Structures are given as structure tokens and as C-alpha cells.
């Protein structure tokens, strides 16, 4: 017992911090069921039952915001699974070690730069008189207002997100590929399999469990469309195609100060996300025997 006291004491500071900054806000989330008034505080604001939630479903914004969130997140998930896979297959064919390593060093880099910086660059490149439009005009095409065009905005989000993360996401595929026994390729080659056939019958089957695992874990992310990126790239003209739950909660809550409503929307997102993560972990455990703890 006395020996375990040290263990409890080691956990104490961290647990205290989690209590204050994670558990207390959960209790504070009751304002989703209140007509919250900052002057009265959480304890004295009048209760309003499910009013904030019913209101949420009545306002026209909400349908758009939910749709945008789902569509953008799913587009990013698909691209985030496929592009790194293709890139890992390409990289796996490269036999020249120094070249492979240099490519890896370069493509991992954007992952470590912040969306503030990358957005600054993207906004500049895609501006009306920016370099991309210059290139378009040399091909005789008309310039495009990329950042205020609802047809383009989601594609720009997916493309720039893929650009930033594909390199880093290949790591997990490459780790799985190092486990392939070279004799499998030799056997395939002796049987007359060309490179493409070897990729199809040796490399891809090896990666299949990893692909299934990543796809399963992605279920937990279908409500995370990427706040940092969208917050730094969007503007009111593209709310129609790019406004997501997180940006909407920020504006309703902290800018317009409709605390109850914003908390209700945020809470709903958290509950649904939580359930999805539980489901995805269950599935990952069942199909891939994967456990994080």
C-alpha cells in the first residue's frame, strides 16, 4: 500500500490538470440545456430543456454545416488512404537508397508546418492575380477566383490537405512493406510475374490488413473536417461549401456569443464522434486485432 502511494502521487498532477481542463468543461456543458446568461453563470441561468437542440435543427445553417462537414471529411479520408498507398508503392520500387531517403525527407516536411503558414502561401498562390492564375493565362485560360468559388473550395481543401499529409501518411505503409520477405518476390519472378503483377499479388496483399485498419480507424474522423485548415482558408463567400461544425461553433459561440446554442452543437458533435470512435475501435479490434491500450 505504502509503495503504491508513490504511484498515486505521480499521477496526481496530471489527473488534476485533466480534471480542470477536461472534466470540468464536461460539467460546464450543461449550458447546452440552458438559456445561458453569462451574468447569471452556469448555476443560476434558467433551464431550457432541449430548446437549443430543437433550434439547432430548425436553422437552415445547420443542414449545410453538417453536410459540409461530412462531405469534406469523407473526401479527405478517401484521398488520405489512397494517395499515400500509391506513393508507398512507388517508393517501394525505388532501389537507390539515397534517392529514396531524400524523397522521404522532402515529402514528410509539410506535415510539420502549421496551417497558418501553409494557408498564407496557398492564399497567395491561388489569389486572383496569383501565380496559378498566371500559369492558367499562359495556356489561354481565364483566371479563376479560387478562394471565393464554391465549386472549387472543397477541392482546394482536399488537395492542399493531401499535399500536406500524404508523405507523412506513407510511413505506416512503408513500415508494413519492410516486413515483406524478399523470397516472395523471387518466387513470383521465377514464375514469370512482371513488376506490375508482383505489386498486385505480393505487395498489395501484404498491405491489405494495414489498409483495412486505417479505413476502420478513419470512421472516428468523419466529423473532423480539419478546423485549422478551413479556419485559415475560408471566408463568408464559401460558407456554402466550406463552413463546418467546428468553424460554425466558433462563430456562433465566441463571436456571436450564443453560448447555449454553440455548446449544444459542439456537444452533439462530441457525442456522435465518441460513439463513432468506440465503434471503430471495436471493429479494428475484431478485424485487425488492434488495440491502443
Amino acid at each position: 500500500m505504502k509503495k503504491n502511494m508513490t504511484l498515486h502521487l505521480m499521477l496526481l498532477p496530471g489527473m488534476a490538470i485533466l480534471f480542470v481542463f477536461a472534466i470540468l468543461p464536461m460539467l460546464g456543458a450543461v449550458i447546452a440545456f440552458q438559456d445561458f446568461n453569462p451574468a447569471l453563470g452556469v448555476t443560476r441561468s434558467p433551464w431550457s430543456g432541449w430548446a437549443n437542440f430543437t433550434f439547432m435543427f430548425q436553422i437552415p445553417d445547420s443542414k449545410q454545416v453538417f453536410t459540409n462537414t461530412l462531405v469534406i471529411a469523407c473526401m479527405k479520408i478517401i484521398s488520405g488512404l489512397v494517395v499515400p498507398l500509391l506513393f508507398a508503392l512507388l517508393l517501394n520500387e525505388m532501389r537507390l537508397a539515397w534517392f529514396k531517403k531524400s524523397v522521404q525527407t522532402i515529402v514528410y516536411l509539410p506535415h510539420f508546418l502549421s496551417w497558418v503558414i501553409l494557408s498564407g502561401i496557398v492564399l497567395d498562390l491561388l489569389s486572383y492575380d496569383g501565380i496559378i492564375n498566371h500559369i492558367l493565362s499562359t495556356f489561354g485560360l481565364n483566371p479563376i477566383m479560387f478562394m471565393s468559388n464554391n465549386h472549387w473550395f472543397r477541392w482546394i481543401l482536399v488537395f492542399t490537405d493531401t499535399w500536406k499529409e500524404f508523405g507523412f501518411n506513407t510511413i505506416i505503409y512503408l513500415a508494413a512493406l519492410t516486413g515483406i520477405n524478399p523470397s516472395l518476390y523471387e518466387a513470383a519472378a521465377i514464375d514469370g510475374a512482371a513488376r506490375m503483377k508482383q505489386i498486385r499479388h505480393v505487395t498489395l496483399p501484404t498491405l491489405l490488413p494495414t489498409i483495412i485498419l486505417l479505413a476502420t480507424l478513419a470512421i472516428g474522423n468523419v466529423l473532423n473536417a480539419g478546423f485549422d485548415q478551413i479556419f485559415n482558408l475560408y471566408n463568408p463567400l464559401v460558407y456554402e461549401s466550406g463552413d463546418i461544425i467546428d468553424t460554425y461553433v466558433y462563430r456562433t459561440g465566441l463571436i456571436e456569443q450564443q453560448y447555449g446554442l454553440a455548446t449544444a452543437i459542439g456537444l452533439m458533435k462530441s457525442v456522435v464522434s465518441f460513439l463513432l470512435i468506440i465503434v471503430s475501435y471495436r471493429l479494428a479490434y475484431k478485424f485487425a486485432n488492434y488495440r491502443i491500450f
Partner: protein
Amino acid sequence: MVRAQTWQAKLGYGSLFVILGIISLLCLAPIWYTIAVSLSEKSAAAANAVTLLPVGFNWSSYEKLLEDQKFFTAFGVSLQRVALGGLLNFLMTVLMAYPLSREANKFRSRNVYMWILVFTMLFSAGLIPWYMVIQKLHLLDTMWALVLPGAVPVFNVILLMNFFRGIPKDLEEAAAMDGAGHLYMLFKIFIPISLPALATVTLFSIVGHWNSFFDGLILMNHSNNYPLQTYIQQLVVQINDMSRMNPDEIKQIMQISSKTLNAAKIVISMIPILIVYPFLQRFFIHGIVLGSVKE
């Protein structure tokens, strides 16, 4: 390894170099372009005449940057935040990973703590209640608002816990035989063994602190307290959101905001990341792979 030597195979292998080369260049191009703009003449940059090489090469935007008091204030806030936040993250990670790596039959409450930890990782109350707690604690406009709420990096705790569990039991038993307590065990045996893993998670938390802008934006009311990323966000990104302004305002802002100066600020803010990047790269593959090792 048997390698086909037909001309098709050679051609295929050759085009692999080209494709990988082009993809790598596409990853570097935007960064390269920003450096080129920062070294260009102001008028050339404003006219978007810069492509891959600086036009009218000069250092004037960097010289001007040296006189920018606000930039250095923000840089200082970020440095402080990285030092304090990184240290807190490190301490919390080791202090929590060790007890949680004990077996549940020897440390009864282990699973209770574990469930709390995982629950806080998977479920969050949302932005508004989180903000209100920080506000109620009077942390707004203090350094603590930037480092305390995220002081426990739960995912890193779990990574390191898994790593600690992989340490051979004999080592522990030998030390326990010599009468080593938990603190001795953690600081003299576990931490030295796991230095590469610890370096990985610490570097990741440092990069996270350096890159985060949103907490600075909502938790700091005075722009003097902004960390660097928030400062740049206000300068580079907010200004681009011109749809809320009338044409006169836009013109005015265009005149004040200098593209070359902004590019120089972006470049300087990337430098710390580029400095730690080689170390990050040496460790992170190792770290990620070890985190996914299951018992």
C-alpha cells in the same frame, strides 16, 4: 533479388525517378516560392512577377523585419511557450506513463486511472465550456492559458506507457531486488532506456506548441500576448479575407501590408521547425513504429 533487364523494365525504372522527383519538387515548391518572394523587390512581388527565383534580389525585407517590435514580441512569446509547454508535457508524460505501465494486479487503481485518461482523450466537452473554464480561472492573457490546458498529452502518455511495458521485466526485478523505489526506477532505469522514444514525443509536443495559433487567438485579448503563429495568422490570413471589407479598406490594407515582409516573417517562423526537423526525422519513424507495438 532477380531484376528484369528488358528495355521496358529500364524505361519503367527511369520514369520512377522522374515521377518521384516531380512529386518531391511539388512538396518543396510553395516553400521555395515563399523564400524567393521574401528576397525579391517589393514592387516585383506585389505584381506577382516572382516565380522560382527572386526578382531584384535583396535583403531589405529582412532588414525591415529587424525593426518590427511586434514580430519579436510574438517570437518571444512562442519561445517561452515552447520551453514551458514542452517541459510540462515531458514531465506529465513520464510521470503518468510509469504508474500506468504497472500491472493492474500490483497497482489496483491502474485501470481506473486508465479509463479516465482514455475517456478524456476520446470525449471532449467542446470549445465553449473549455473556454469558459479558462476564463473563470482568470488565465486569459497569461502564459498559463497556452501551456496548462494541454499539459497532459494523453496520446503520448499511452505511447510511452506501451514502450515502458516492453522493457524486459528482469531489469526491473534486478533493480527491485536492490531495493530501488519507483522514483529511482523511473529516473535511473526507465527514462535512460527510453530516451529515443522520449525525444520523439517531446519533439512532437514542441512542434505542436510552436505551430498552434487558435488558442493564442481566443485566449489572448491583447495582441502583445500573441504567439508567433497567431500574429502571422492575423497578418497574412485575416487580411486575405477581404470579402468583409469595402474597396477602400482593401486598398489601404494592400498598401500597408507588404508581401515581401510577410514572406520574410513566414520564412523566419519556419526556421525553428527546419532546425529540429533532422532530429525529428531520425526519431519519428522509430517512435511511430514502437507506439504501434501491441502487447
